[in-house]
């Protein structure tokens, strides 16, 4: 068992992660915070860190945050599990999902 402290916290709204940030590439420029018409994010209190996802359930999956990030690889879209599309290799018939 992990010794991690357990806190009392309400159920987490889901889906909770419309995007995944890579803290090694993201420099916390907050451009994604600005282009989001919903204000899904807030800037991280500590300068240089990826934004905090505050209102994930309000995301309309427009993609602007990921499309407009100036640092490739800093932010990756993370479709909710129930929304992940499928495709099929025409020659082999193999099925894949994003």
């Amino acid at each position: 068992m992990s010794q991690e402290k357990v806190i009392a916290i309400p159920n987490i709204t889901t889906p909770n992660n419309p995007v995944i940030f890579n803290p090694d590439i993201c420099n916390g420029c907050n451009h994604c915070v600005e282009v989001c018409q919903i204000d899904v994010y807030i800037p991280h209190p500590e300068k240089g860190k990826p934004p905090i996802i505050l209102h994930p359930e309000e995301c309309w999956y427009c993609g602007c945050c990921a499309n407009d990030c100036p640092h490739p690889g800093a932010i990756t879209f993370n479709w909710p599990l129930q929304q992940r599309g499928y495709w099929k290799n025409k020659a082999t018939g193999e099925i894949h999902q994003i």
Partner: protein
Amino acid sequence: MSTWHDYLKEEGHVPDWPYPIRFDHEQEIDTDVLVIGGGIAGCWAAISAVRQGLSVALVEKGDTIRSGAGGPGCDHWCNAPANPLSNVDPDEWAQHMADRPYCNGTGIQIQCREDWDTLLEMEQMGGKIRDTDDEYVGAKGRDDKTKLMISPRYTRIHSYLPDADTGKAPDPDEKLNNVVIRVWGTTFKPALKKECKRLGVKIFDRVMVTSLLTETGVQGARIIGATGLNNRTGEFMIFKSKSAVLATAGAGSIWMISTELGGYSNMMSRTITGDGTVMAWNAGAELTKMESTGVLRIATGYKHKWYSGAGDASYENVPIVDANGKVLPYPIQGWVDAGAMVPSPEVEEAIRKGILSGEYALPFYGDFPAMPEVERNATWKLMLGEESTTKIIMDTFNAAGYDQSRDLLQSYKFIEGNSLSQWREAGYGGGLLVDWNLKTSLDGLYAAGTQMFSPEDHSYAAATGRYAGRKAAAYAREIGEPKISREQVEREKARVYAPVKRSSGLEWKELHAGIARVMQYYVSEFKTESLLNMGLNALRKIEEESVPLLFALDPHKLMRSLEDVSLLTYAQIIIHASLARKASSVPLNFQRIDYPTLDPPEWRKFLTIKLENGKVKTGELPPTFWGNMKNQYEAHNKDYTGVYREK
């Protein structure tokens, strides 16, 4: 990690609100022209007004750079019959488009005359409208001289349906209309914001306008400004203006909200909550077509997010095949079917039967590999890659290993079923009544894009925004200084801040879901006088008992609360309008069980609705009340100078 609970676990405390809190602080802005809403229509309104040499303030709930329905992008300029490749006369084409029942002849005429001008201006601003990189040489519809890309949409007819007379898709070899242009729409909104800034438009991002101010604070009087709420700081904004253009959005999620997928309840953004229509209504403006609703479009969060009308992967020229590769008789909005994308009920039924009998094996796929390479690229990279919200879908597929030249894209059309009939949407049907200056029934107030009744696409927003901006500027030039009623401001301030004075009670999502449930029960496909009245009473009860319990913990949630209060009013307007129409109608998607006759001739008219001294008042207008479109346009635009020439 970047979730809220990660932060809590790492830091041992929750994050502080990142912006300074300025509840109750006031900021006053004095401007000639006020533009409310910074989408495509609003930006263009601001640009055309500021070019008249007046001061312009643009107020936007999100950030103008990517806000609005066309913020992420747009794939077509749908109605530019004045473009150099067009084979139709713009005035005749406008007339043809306006043949559709309950459309807006004024807006369509403006669009048909000026849409090509908006594209040329977009190009001056830095937006991309031509295949200047020669990526699509050889694609059908590409003109090698101008490098414009004509879309198969509307190639012979104006509707998405096959030819109404023959029931068949029109002959693809006939002369094409060439009115729809494929564009690189992801470049548009940033270019518009940049141009607004360059020309000196004062932009107020993250400000939600909450009400319109009227002369002496009286309903029905001239519009002289607006109040707003900064949704990050909570600051109260007072805009004083000589004229205003309303360029806000429609109402997106009245019938349905998933509280955990609040931004995903339909195709449209969470921000689309009818605020503009409601503030105009409260100020006494006349609305029309508010009884018209449709079944909620796909992408409800319970469905796969993709296109609304198209059969998922069928978008533009992509053949739809079954699991064994058999081609389905589904229209694909392509050159082969002259842009048709909605199957006739017979075709839809034939496919259903084919599924049940085993003739067609599920699931279906979009057969991108079967397409010629250049057409495939034009659909995948240009059309879907430049459209609002689909770019990220394409990118995610490609990043996961999907190769459009090798792989079939799954279609969800039949396996997800249709929306339930009680999940409706206000659609983009009802809105403000406008005249040939795009002036509303209130002096000083102009409307553009989705705020007008029966709006159309992004290009319509552009043309009408640009037009409303220049007309609002002309009015502002002539009219005297307004005087704001302090009493009206104080009333609005008390209303706006009420939810932050409480820290428990009812939160916005619960209010929203409560409104949606009333609409599902009483204002769905089953409409009768008594059901509608039950709905009205239920909404009044919410207004009296639940709205006073609303609480908001920060400026963002305060904005969401106020939006839902707008939706509550919007829902009531829909019921009032529905009560007034005592007949059923196919084009209005309106079924009255107690008045079942479909579209009787005496009901082929617009019903208007407004508040007068706080009382609902209805009226009516003939079906083409705008008169002769060509003559009216010309009479009102003698001074039109065409494309703005950059200095």
